[in-house]
């Protein structure tokens, strides 16, 4: 019995310890699971939070990008408007001139017709013939100058409108000449003391080429205005003797690869471009003008426009002597 008891009690102890161990292990496991679960839950929550944060940031960045694009478009538009503002006086002057001719030549024709009446009564055929010739030639002048005013108003409207992006056959010589005059009178209206010699050398063998007219017009305008600014700054610096000169030229060329292309250059004898600036001039927002005077978008936009036409915009300069911008456009 005692033995049995002994056995029984040792068995009980074994069972007891085994049971206890199981309970402890079980408890341990539960604790472990609970602990890791809570840990995982925390990790998960953290991840979720991070994901939300990233989503938030993404939205923010997307919004900012959209805002930036909008602002960029507005900037491009305001750059366009600013250059239009610069042109306004030039445009007024350039419309006034042909209108004067229209008015004056039509007045003259009225006089000539009254004279013809007198000659008709006299039956003086020779005189009548010569009067008719004069009247016809005057009518042609009226028509020419009317068209000139018309084309100026059209190009002004085109300049202010958003680009349709459509390419159309364009006479680059006419376009360059028009903008040269507009820019000149516009610049002069702003700064009465400004004056510069203008030289143009247009290759008349150039036929119309397909370009987005208002875009290329803006490039030409931008390059010419820059040239005027450069010569006027050099003049203001008081260097003597100095005769400001801006030259615009076009040329039909054959590229190294044997393709024909059109070359348009705008050259000024201003102070040229500093070495340190030359790599930056085509970057957006880079300007050498005093703050508030330039948007720094002119050349960068010009560069993009020429690129979009499959062409090239390059610069040639010598500090203190000249700057020349050369556009090459495929024909």
């Amino acid at each position, binding site marked *: 019995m005692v033995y049995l008891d002994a056995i029984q009690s040792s068995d009980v102890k074994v069972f007891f310890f085994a049971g206890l161990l199981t309970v402890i292990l079980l408890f341990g496991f539960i604790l472990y699971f609970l602990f890791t679960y809570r840990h995982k839950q925390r990790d998960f929550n953290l991840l979720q939070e991070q994901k939300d944060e990233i989503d938030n940031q993404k939205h923010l960045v997307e919004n900012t990008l959209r805002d930036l694009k909008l602002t960029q478009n507005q900037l491009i538009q305001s750059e366009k408007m600013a250059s239009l503002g610069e042109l306004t006086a030039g445009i007024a002057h350039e419309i006034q001139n042909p209108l004067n001719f229209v008015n*004056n030549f039509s007045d*003259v024709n009225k006089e000539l017709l009254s004279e013809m009446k007198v000659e008709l009564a006299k039956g003086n055929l020779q005189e009548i013939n010569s009067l008719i010739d004069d009247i016809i030639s005057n009518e042609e002048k009226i028509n020419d100058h009317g068209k000139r005013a018309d084309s100026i108003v059209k190009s002004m409207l085109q300049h202010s409108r958003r680009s349709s992006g459509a390419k159309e056959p364009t006479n680059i010589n006419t376009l360059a000449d028009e903008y040269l005059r507009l820019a000149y009178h516009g610049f002069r209206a702003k700064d009465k003391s400004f004056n510069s010699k203008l030289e143009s050398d247009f290759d008349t063998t150039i036929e119309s080429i397909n370009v987005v007219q208002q875009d290329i017009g803006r490039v030409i305008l931008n390059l010419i205005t820059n040239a005027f600014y450069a010569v006027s700054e050099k003049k203001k610096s008081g260097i003597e003797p100095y005769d400001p000169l801006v030259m615009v030229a076009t040329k039909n060329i054959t590229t190294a690869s044997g393709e024909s292309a059109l070359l348009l250059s705008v050259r000024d004898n201003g102070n040229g471009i500093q070495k340190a600036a030359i790599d930056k001039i085509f970057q957006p927002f880079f300007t050498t003008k005093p703050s508030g005077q330039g948007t720094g978008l002119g050349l960068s936009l010009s560069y993009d426009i020429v690129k979009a036409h499959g062409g090239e915009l390059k610069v040639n300069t010598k500090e203190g002597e000249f700057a020349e911008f050369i556009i090459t456009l495929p024909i």
Partner: protein
Amino acid sequence: MKVLVVDDERDVQILFEQRFRKEIRNNEMVFAFAFSGEEALEYLNLHQHEAVLILSDINMPGMSGLELLDRIKNKYKTPPPKVMMITAYGDKENFDTAMRLGADDFLTKPVEFPVLKEKLKAI
């Protein structure tokens, strides 16, 4: 009377020749034309004392009409030709400068030819 007209607009020549055709035909007036300030000075060098009157535009590329006026009045003193300025910009600054430099008259564009004829007859 010989008149030198200076303007960068080339059609000014045809306009003047038509506007003054009677006077030209009757030899009352002779016109010469220059299309820049530089050309005008060249003309005056070659034909000294011929032009009695110079009608000049102000706003011209290169030498402006005011610069031309200044040079003429300084160079040709005995007797200086009369210089009439014609400009699209009739503002005070242009007017004052022209007067200070010795302009004899100042007209604004568009030119009223009957008025101009009256003024020319008075000279």
